[in-house]
């Protein structure tokens, strides 16, 4: 057990970029402790009693928003959900004004999702409230990265590994538009894993090798070879019938994860997906429902614990020892 003092001093969680190995470990350890709460009869601790958390979502989201809401409530915080439809942004107010108004009500944490990259960094530059990034554009989605890393960590013994070092993680699909891919790549790289970006060349970030220290593969078979973790990304429908991709049929044919293709990966490889899943497009049902491979529901459970940990650490981080 580690004995170091203040391992968490950050005010915001804006992304995985810049998080140290130790900070990631603190977050994961706290999440592990909190998992127990979610298994109890009475799934609630009084830790954040009297704290106010605002969930501000400018993009449709059911699972992430619910996960944060439940995380706050299980820690006894008051959680308020605001979605774009009910906010005044639609009335022409600037984003900064909207947030300044919320800040005036003195919330302890604002959890925010926004369709544009960098919005949380922008707000953090102008506001005092603690911010949690629940996804900004194609930039980052740090709690998803953390929950994925926690899920992988849980499976390290089964993969016969004692650390992330040398672990091969293949992140497959629409990497270009994926904040999940970015957060995972940054976090996993800092823990020592080997990360592959696997996807069509039209859906790959420019100079991804240099930007993220990953290897890039444009054939799924090549990307899967020997991988310990296969992380499939959701393919958004609006990418179809565009210059990015000609059709669902072609994508499923070349990029869909089937049981046959999965045989190319490590024999014990686990399969992950951030959801929501397009069965039969990026991943076949037989893989999704394979209890030996798919850890998708564990990801969801870990998501709750990770978000509880994040809220706990941020709510207390205003205190300097």
């Amino acid at each position, binding site marked *: 057990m580690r004995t170091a003092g203040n391992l968490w001093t950050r005010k915001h969680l804006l992304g995985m970029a810049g998080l140290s190995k130790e900070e990631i470990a603190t977050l994961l350890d706290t999440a592990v402790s909190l998992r127990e709460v979610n298994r*109890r009869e009475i799934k609630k601790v009084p830790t954040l009693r009297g704290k106010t958390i605002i969930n501000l979502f400018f993009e449709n989201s059911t699972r992430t928003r619910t996960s944060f809401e439940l995380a706050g409530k299980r820690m006894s915080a008051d959680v308020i959900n605001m979605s774009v439809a009910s906010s005044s942004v639609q009335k022409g107010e600037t984003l900064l004004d909207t947030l300044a108004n919320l800040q005036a009500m003195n919330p302890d944490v604002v959890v925010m999702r926004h369709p544009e990259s960098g919005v949380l960094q922008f707000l953090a530059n102008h506001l005092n409230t603690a911010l949690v990034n629940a996804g900004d554009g194609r930039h980052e989605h740090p709690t998803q990265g953390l929950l994925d890393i926690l899920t992988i960590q849980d499976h390290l013994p089964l993969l016969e590994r004692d650390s992330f070092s040398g672990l091969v993680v293949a992140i497959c699909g629409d990497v270009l538009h994926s904040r999940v891919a970015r957060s995972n790549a940054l976090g996993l790289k800092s823990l020592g894993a080997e990360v592959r970006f696997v996807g069509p060349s039209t859906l790959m970030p420019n100079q991804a090798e240099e930007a993220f220290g990953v290897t890039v593969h444009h054939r799924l078979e090549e990307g899967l070879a020997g991988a310990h973790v296969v992380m499939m990304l959701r393919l958004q429908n609006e990418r179809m019938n565009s210059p990015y991709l000609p059709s669902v049929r072609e994508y499923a044919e070349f990029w869909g994860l089937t049981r046959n293709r999965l045989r190319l990966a490590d024999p014990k490889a686990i399969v992950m997906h951030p959801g929501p899943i397009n069965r039969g497009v990026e991943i076949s049902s037989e893989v999704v429902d394979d209890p030996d491979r798919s850890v998708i529901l564990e990801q969801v459970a870990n998501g709750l614990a990770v978000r509880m940990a994040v809220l706990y650490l941020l709510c*207390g981080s205003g205190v300097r020892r």
Partner: protein
Amino acid sequence: MSVAFADELLLTSSETLALIDALAARLHADRLGLPDPQARVGDWVVIGIRRGGALVAERLWDRLCERVQEKIPIGFLDITFYRDDLDTIGPNPVVGETDLRMDIDHKHILLVDDVLFTGRTIRAAMNALFDYGRPERVELLVLVDRGGRQLPIQPDHVGLVVQAGMGECIKLVDKGENVQVVRRKLG
């Protein structure tokens, strides 16, 4: 934690272990060894508060089981998420895992901690405990009572009573097998 000055040894390792053994013996004599109309041995549960209380509880439980010739259930409680000082001290960077697999409804709980000071830890532990069920009775056992209570909480079983000032810290120091109790003056 501020800079620690030279520790004064209150209980050596062997004294600490002997004290726990003595507590076990006394418990057996006063409680578990007697025919109790309210509780059979099987109704008792030992619960240690992480981290120091858990160390004491493990040793104590071991000795108790020996004496009663029965496996008493044991559990561990981390009270981090029940503390009332998040705003003053901040988050605890090292959170232990709570491990209460048994049903505690109608049980007789022996709550074990290492050092009793303000009583806040015990309050938090009781809150935590009651989120798991409704025990019949809770008794508190502490290795050391150092005084300085801020809440109306008193132990039922005490190993050692020490007078300590507010500027002092009484600690169970765990160095592997070597468990000792020290008095540390805070700078």
